């Protein structure tokens, strides 16, 4: 559901950037469309080299000098003092204007490495107030001190910390300083470039919670560039998946996590570890290789699935995929106890069941994606819920939302031995 009364902050349309290198031109990103609304968090996920950072460096005007913008626009919406909205194309602005009006003041960035992003020779107070100094946002030194002290308190440090040097802080504290440096300018948009990747998990949680609280307080929009999907699920409202410079899928968090359509997204989601050990044991990480999958991103178009869920696919590929089923989860776990021999899951695809001594079972899909007859798709499982018993069959599970052809109401596993299941 397109929420047209939400306010756009940043709108990237059909952006393509190429790098000139010694080895020839390298496509960084192609045809990227991103919308960012006020006060929400958009996460852009993808592996290294997928072009995540390039997109937003273009918005900040800090692209490398050997880059060419082939096409596209980045529209930034702002308000004049009297409240009337105005838009400007950031790609067409001169560097001087971007530096004076956009950088720091309207769009700020937080970086990945907390050790390297702070100047080791400057005191923390100087680092935080750097934006204020550049844009002359204070009248006298007392006001500057006050602003620095306020923002330090807000991010969870003490005002006395302003006199210390970065090397006297821990990683999480340095990242807070980085956040303070971005926030003191009160920007409308903060680009967080993998800002929690270098921290340990408990500190990640602290920093992310801090960012969420600050977002509630100030209404800043976040662009979260990440590759940790479980964290992304926690904080983001919408997600965009980048692969090899193409935006393969976008949508809200629920849409993407409940119904990932693109095989790359599916492989990413299947790689998320589950906290429950039994479930985790049966989790199968789906593999996806761009070349072997026979997919060509260049011929795909941006297809609308439902709501705000878009995927990059050709028409034929889309026709082969199922439409989204209401509710249901895609991946879960089924562990087979006992020693089932052969069986079929009535999903429309067939699976062979092979017993193993540990009591788990292995399902060998044939004809399905990701596995061949020779190579089992590991301890993979399909989940679901119990459905009513059917005479003559062992009860298994209702399988819902599987790719393939799933009869609503689930299927069953016909097999000769006992099997029980663990809910996913």
């Amino acid at each position, binding site marked *: 559901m397109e929420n047209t009364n939400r306010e756009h902050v940043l709108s990237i349309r059909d952006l393509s950037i190429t790098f000139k290198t010694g080895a020839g031109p390298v496509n960084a990103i192609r045809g990227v469309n991103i919308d960012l609304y006020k006060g929400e968090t958009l996460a852009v996920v993808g592996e290294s080299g997928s072009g995540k950072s390039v997109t937003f460096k273009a918005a*900040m005007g800090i692209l490398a000098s050997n880059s060419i913008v082939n096409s596209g626009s980045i529209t930034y919406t702002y308000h004049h003092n009297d409240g009337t909205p105005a838009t400007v194309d950031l790609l067409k602005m001169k560097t001087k204007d971007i530096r004076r009006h956009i*950088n720091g*003041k309207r769009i700020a960035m937080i970086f990945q490495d907390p050790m*390297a992003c702070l100047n*080791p020779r400057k005191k923390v107070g100087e680092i935080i107030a750097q934006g204020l100094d550049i*844009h002359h946002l204070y009248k006298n030194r007392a006001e500057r001190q006050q602003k620095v002290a306020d923002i330090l308190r807000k991010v969870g440090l003490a005002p*006395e910390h302003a006199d*210390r*040097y970065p090397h006297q802080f821990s990683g999480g504290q340095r990242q807070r300083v980085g956040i303070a440096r971005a926030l003191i*300018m009160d920007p409308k948009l903060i680009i967080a470039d993998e800002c929690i990747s270098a921290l340990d998990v408990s500190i990640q949680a602290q920093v992310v919670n801090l960012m969420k609280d600050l977002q509630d307080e100030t209404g800043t929009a976040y662009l979260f560039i990440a590759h940790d999907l479980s964290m992304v699920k926690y904080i983001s409202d919408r997600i965009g998946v980048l692969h090899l410079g193409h935006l393969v899928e976008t949508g809200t968090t629920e849409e993407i996590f409940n119904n990932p359509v693109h095989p790359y997204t599916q492989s990413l989601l299947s790689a998320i570890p589950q906290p429950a050990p039994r479930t985790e044991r049966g989790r199968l990480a789906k593999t996806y290789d761009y070349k072997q999958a026979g997919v060509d991103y260049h011929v795909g178009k941006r297809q609308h699935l439902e709501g705000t869920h878009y995927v990059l696919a050709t028409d034929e590929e889309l026709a082969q995929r199922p439409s989204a089923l209401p509710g249901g989860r895609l991946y879960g776990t089924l562990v087979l106890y006992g020693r089932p021999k052969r069986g079929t899951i009535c999903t429309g695809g067939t699976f062979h069941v092979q017993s193993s001594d540990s009591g788990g079972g292995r399902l060998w899909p044939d004809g399905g994606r990701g596995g061949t007859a020779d190579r089992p798709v590991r301890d993979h499982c399909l989940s679901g819920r119990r459905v009513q018993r059917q005479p003559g069959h062992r009860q298994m599970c209702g399988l819902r939302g599987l790719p393939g052809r799933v009869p609503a109401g689930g299927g069953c596993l016909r097999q000769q031995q006992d099997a029980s299941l663990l809910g996913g």
Partner: protein
Amino acid sequence: MSHIESIPAGSQARIADLRPEDFQLRGVSGQHLDSNFASQGYWHDVLHRFLSNKGAVVALILIVLIVAMALAGPGMSGRDYSSQTLSEKNLAPRIPVLEDLGIFNGDEAMTTTTGTRVVNGYEDKELTDTYYWFGSDTLGRDIWTRVWEGARVSLGIAIVSAAINMTLGMCYGLISGYFGGWVDTIMQRIVEINNGIPRLVVVTLLLLVVKPGFTTIVLALVITEWINMSRIARAEMLKLKEQEFVLASRTLGAGSFSIIFKEVLPNIIGQIITQLMFSIPTAIFTEAFLSFVGLGIPVPQCSLGSLINEAFNSFTTHPYQIVPPIVVMSLLMLCFNMLADGLREAFDPKLKEM
């Protein structure tokens, strides 16, 4: 009262039985600020490391002494550096208190065709109350005064030219390194052309145009020596240009020159100062070399090099005349080198990370 108490003993409370009112906030402890590590500055660490290097500290003390003597020395003897007393020429060193011990009493050993004999110029000329602490030269000028006057001139030339080199070379190297691209290419080609011209040629050509003097020597030194500093500045800038804090400054809207001089320069000031200290003995020696060759400070002014040049002629007959300027110059160069070495270790960034 928590409803958990209503659960009969022996049964396990399930997670589903817990409710928010079963939990009480124990309290939030305030931030604990340590006071031990409040503000450990960069220079504080540098000073600490420098002071633990004994050789560098001794070198610094000696330099300070020599500079003090260069400032105060010429006034101590009561004689002018250029006034000639031809009747008192070629006198050996004679120091008031030490002469009673048998050394520095005006004796010198003269080797003649018939053998070595000891001659005392003071006794020959009946100068009982005249003391030349370092002796007098072939024109009857006091070597003590001339040595310290020469040290003053040499140090002056060295420091002025080193300072100009530092400023010029640093700015040039930083700008060339930061902007890169064709700016860097052009600037480095200019450097290479400059580097290809030998120093002696530069000085000679310069002397055709300008009269010899203090400023000419400084100019000659600047033209040939600024390249070293610019190389170091450029190398450091290339290292730091891609650091994330520089990128962070750019995203905050800092201009190029602001980044060069406020972000990057404080990080490389250590290397710059070290190179400055290294360039001073180079300048002293170069000036001495030029004076020795005859292209240096004109008479009657003296520098350490010109003193050595003049005393060279009477080296075999009156060796004491060449010793003071050589000792002073050697001490200066050695001490500056040791000081620079100590500074380089003190500024060493590898020890910086904690």
